[in-house]
């Protein structure tokens, strides 16, 4: 399940609703991304997340399908916020649930790495010197690249 929304979310309530009644689940992993108060040594007062409505939902749906193809997931949730956010506020939530912890943890890690290089979002940061569009990080591409070799094939 994927959701793109302006509003905040409650992690406990989301995980509870996602996994309710499914007792095949033995492990639930989650990743929560929040707004930091600095970037490159400069204080951040807030940021605005812009996205490509329509394509964002398509890409997130595709990313979720890819995770389900690679790992035996019982449930999966991606929530990504847009609009203006201040330091400490929640930006993104990834939850994966599986029979065992291995698949849940790996799929969760995969989803956040893959999302960062595929979902069309852009961050505009507010600093004391004005607004600045965030540059893409090479480290994000490198993090995503480690998942290009699929787990079942990596062992061959």
């Amino acid at each position, binding site marked *: 399940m994927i959701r793109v929304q302006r509003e905040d979310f409650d992690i406990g309530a989301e995980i509870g609703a996602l996994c309710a009644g499914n007792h095949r689940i033995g492990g639930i992993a989650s990743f929560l*991304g929040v707004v930091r108060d600095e970037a490159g040594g400069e204080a951040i007062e807030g940021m605005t*997340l*812009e*996205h*490509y409505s*329509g*394509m964002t939902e*398509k890409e997130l749906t595709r990313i979720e399908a890819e995770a389900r193809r690679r790992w035996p997931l019982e449930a999966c949730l991606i929530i*990504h916020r847009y609009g203006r956010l201040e330091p400490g506020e929640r*930006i*993104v939530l990834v939850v994966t649930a599986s029979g065992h912890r291995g698949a849940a943890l790996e799929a969760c890690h995969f989803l*956040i790495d893959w*999302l*960062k*290089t*595929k*979902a*069309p*979002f*852009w*961050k*505009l940061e507010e600093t004391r010197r004005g607004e600045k*569009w*965030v*540059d*893409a*990080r090479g480290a*994000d591409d490198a993090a995503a690249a480690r998942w290009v070799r699929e787990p079942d094939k990596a062992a061959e």
Partner: protein
Amino acid sequence: MRMIYFAWLRAKIGVAEERIEPPAEIATVADLLDWLKAKGGGYGDALADLSVVRVAVNQEYVKADHPVAAGDEVALFPPITGG
């Protein structure tokens, strides 16, 4: 053709979206970017360095040799920075 611009490309071009009618010889994304860039002004500024411009046609990421046609939705944006 419906054009949509995001992040600093939108800021430099000055509009979030617009309808354009490129000449018939504009067949690919690369042709379209060259044609827009040649209009100068905000387009010239936004498209000065194509290594930092990404393109989606009908909401799918594409490369420079991808074809473009009159009814397409074409989006131009910088490398993504979500998550």
